[in-house]
């Protein structure tokens, strides 16, 4: 590879990394701000009035009792948080979402500007115009940048990954190894048996929600050490084998039925595929039924 090409690819990768970081940051801030709005609506207005007073002669805005509008605003914040989160997951495929995000933010920026100019010159209005306007511009900028920084090959890889959601998850291998590790009474383990494609193929033949449900379960398992006991401050997929086994056992013994049922489903798929292998059956002393009782000629 020539030096210039390598340089271009390197800068494209850096661009993608920055775009993702910005969008993740936005998603997180939308979520936090939306949460603050819904739980502390009056305190938010008072705080913004105080900041406005510090900056200059803005009219303080009275706290509102319009809880209905607040609920709509919360829904809006949740929506824009999801838009930003989904967009950073796959920049090229979900590029259009950035257009919606920019449109939403531009709308609130113009609305609050209009209130500021024609209704009450409150600090909170002009602050929102500045913040949301900046976000709209940022979203549009990322939208424009994406064709330059995400090469088509990355799109194809993302499409392949989208079609094979399980195989693309590192946590899948980590779960396989924890469920049936190598060693012990016989050498083979689920990871070395390469049963992942078989599981994926099997699940693909089930009802439509099954592959997505399984991918969701795997993602939850991966993040579970952060929010479910026994707590660990690492993703499941990065934990050592003994810790992963402990975590899976915690899922299996959980008093929360959906958690237990989710791991049961996953266990069914993994152990059923592993223990149906003829060499493993032979290790267990289980003869193939048609060798034990041949078909009639």
């Amino acid at each position, binding site marked *: 590879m020539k030096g210039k090409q390598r340089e271009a690819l390197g800068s494209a990768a850096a661009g993608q990394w920055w775009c993702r970081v910005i969008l993740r940051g936005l998603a997180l801030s939308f979520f936090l701000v939306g949460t603050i709005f819904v739980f502390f609506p009056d305190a938010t207005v008072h705080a913004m009035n105080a900041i406005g007073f510090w900056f200059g002669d803005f009219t303080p805005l009275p706290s509102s009792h319009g809880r209905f509008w607040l609920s709509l605003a919360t829904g809006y914040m949740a929506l824009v948080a999801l838009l930003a989160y989904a967009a950073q997951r796959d920049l090229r495929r979900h590029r259009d979402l950035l257009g919606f995000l920019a449109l939403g933010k531009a709308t609130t920026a113009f609305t609050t500007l209009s209130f500021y100019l024609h209704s009450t010159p409150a600090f909170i209005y002009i602050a929102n115009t500045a913040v949301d306007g900046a976000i709209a511009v940022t979203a549009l900028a990322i939208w424009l940048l994406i064709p330059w920084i995400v090469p088509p090959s990355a799109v194809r890889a993302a499409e392949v990954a989208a079609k094979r959601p399980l195989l693309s998850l590192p946590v899948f291998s980590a779960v396989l190894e*924890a*469920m*049936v*590790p190598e*060693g*012990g*009474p*016989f050498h083979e383990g689920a990871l070395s048996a390469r049963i992942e494609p078989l599981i994926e193929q*099997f*699940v693909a*033949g*089930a*009802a439509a929600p*099954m592959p997505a449900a399984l991918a969701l379960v795997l993602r939850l398992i991966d993040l579970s050490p952060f929010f479910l006991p026994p707590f660990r401050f690492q993703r499941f997929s990065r934990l050592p*084998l*003994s810790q992963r*086994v402990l975590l*899976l*056992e915690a899922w*299996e*013994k959980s*008093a929360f*039925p959906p958690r*237990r*049922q989710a791991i*049961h489903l996953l*266990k*069914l798929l993994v*152990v*059923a*595929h*592993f*223990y*149906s292998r003829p060499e*493993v*059956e032979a*290790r*267990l*002393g*289980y*003869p*193939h*039924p*048609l060798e*034990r*009782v041949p*078909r*009639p000629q």
Partner: protein
Amino acid sequence: MIVRPEDAPGDLVEHCDVAVGGSGAGGAVVAADLACAGAQVIILEEGEYYTGRDFTAHALAEIGKLYRDRGFTGAIGNTLIAIPLGRAVGGTTTINSGTCWRAPEEVLGRWEREFGIPNLARGGLASEFERIERTLGVAPVPDDLLGPGAEAFCRGARALGWRGENIPRNAVGCRGTGVCVFGCPRDAKQAMNVSYIPQALRAGARLHVRARAERVLIEDGRAVGVVADRVGPDGRARGERLWVVAARTVLSAGALLTPVLLARSGLAERGGPVGRNLRIHPASRVTARFDRPIRAWEGVPQSYHIHEFEPEGIFLQGMVVPPAIHAVALPGFGHAHKERMAAYAHMASFGVLISDTSSGRVLTVGRRPLVWYWMNRNDTARLLRGISLAARAFFAAGAREVFTGVRQRPVLRSMAEAEELEHLPMRASDLEVMAFHPMGTARMGANALQCAVTPDGMMYGVPGLYIADASLLPTSPLVNPQLTIMALATRIANALFRSLSRGGGVGHLAREET
């Protein structure tokens, strides 16, 4: 004649006397009886036609081939309950254990008294039962095929003074391959795919495989046939349709799919009985580990049954599964689970099944059933008692430890622990529950407000439409329902034939078309 979508591609219109949607215990009987009586019959089946030569005895391969949604069918509610269903010619009879019991006299008497279905009790259904048993070769499992797992359990049960017996099955020439639920590779089990369906085909019926019934055709309030999507080997629609125009239409898609078909056809009134009153047989399994090798796989998997607790609605029935399915029942992960699996040859399992008192509902979401079932405390307590009883029998037989599938006590190590188990407070979701034999979602009876189908099998308010499957059963028959469904289907076939004869004679429609 068997017709696959590839044999006659494109949209197709067929005419006949009777269109039968489904080839399980109900549909196969109606199709065979009517075809043998001279009616022109077309059977539609969503799955493929397999016989012994096609069955590999490989659990996962056969689940992929023969089970609806690869076995991921079930109910939601206060717990998740897997309800495996067959999707192949023969329906669930192709993947069941072949157990064939007559519905007990008290159940038939209740159906007669409370639901106004005439002539069931006091031997009223005996001739139908006898005929079917003769056709299927129903006989108790011979002692030499009981299998070491069942023998071990049996020893324990006898030590506790419990009564039991070898299970009557529809197997002819069975040698205990041990994979009944993955399709019998020797065609010994007389499932519908090797018994009634071949009989229907020999009598001139046409069988459209991979034809997924979509809705009933209605004209002036009368059923005039079925329209089906033709599907490829992968189960996806080919974009081709099959229209079967018939003088009489019979739905036999099973208790979970028949209500969906009725709803899609606009025949399930809001608040009406269709889709309600779902009954199942909730079940669990208990696995024991012995010090000595058992080799439980040698013999018939569901070979022995304990009578003792029938008055409580608790049934203990033999079961054996290959390592792939067995592994799921053992608790734990990692090397500990592997150590347990290494002792597979030392293990034996037994099934626990209860006759439910809870009731569920089948809702229609697109083309699929959404099954809602809330298992009540009584059923939960009885299932737990069944698990406790099975564990006791295993300990009495000398088991070292017993795996229960109960969250609070996944492993028991003594008789005392087994006895204590049934007294623990438990929720349905604490147990690993699966269920068999869904039924009752279009029940038969004389009261049109409570029931969807007349005692002759015709749907109330829809002339020309008959239902012949497990949906008909008004309550749980207490035992495995295959024989009861077949007996009622025999009656419905007779009623249908009489009605056809009254309407201008068998074959009239097809003759008109030609």
